[in-house]
């Protein structure tokens, strides 16, 4: 996920467990896919827990659930941005 820490990119360069015959580009591409799908499944689980009523009277999302989901995703991303910024600040501080 390149938005973390301003696109580290070189993160996988130091990975000694890189498979033999697997190029650097392939490695970083698979890492990126891994991170994006991981984020997506976290979103699905968190927002389901927070927004979907568990009585299942209907198989459609009701209005409240839909609105909740939209806001949930927005908030998740905003939180992620906030945490990134805070961590960056922490990193920049002299030890």
């Amino acid at each position, binding site marked *: 996920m*390149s*938005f973390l820490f*301003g*696109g580290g990119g070189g993160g996988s360069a130091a990975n000694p467990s890189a498979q033999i015959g*697997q*190029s650097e*580009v*392939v490695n970083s*591409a*698979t890492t990126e*896919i891994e991170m*994006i*799908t991981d*984020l*997506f499944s976290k*979103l*699905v689980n968190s*927002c*389901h827990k927070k*927004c*979907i009523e*568990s*009585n*299942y*009277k*209907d*198989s*459609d*999302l009701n209005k409240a*659930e*839909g609105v909740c*989901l*939209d806001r949930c*995703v*927005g908030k998740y*991303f905003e939180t992620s941005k906030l945490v990134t910024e805070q961590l960056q600040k922490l990193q920049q501080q002299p030890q």
Partner: protein
Amino acid sequence: MDFSRFSGPERLQLNQYIQKKEMKDFMQLYSNLVQRCFEDCSNDFTSRALSTNEKTCSENCVGKFLKHSERIGARFAEQNAEMMEQQAKLR
């Protein structure tokens, strides 16, 4: 994902990886969904078979989950695009 920046063998490796991952993710989705709907819908064990209520509930649970993840996917794509744009501006 933009595949044009990869060489032939790299593309092959990536395709194999994606195929494997799709399979794995699907199995995971399936088993999570079974667990989710079972936990939310089946709470009465005075009978072995699913009651009509439990059946309807589970069916709705699956239907709703699929719509749920579709909606999350749409918002996710929007947010991601927005983020990429902001990053491009910073560079």
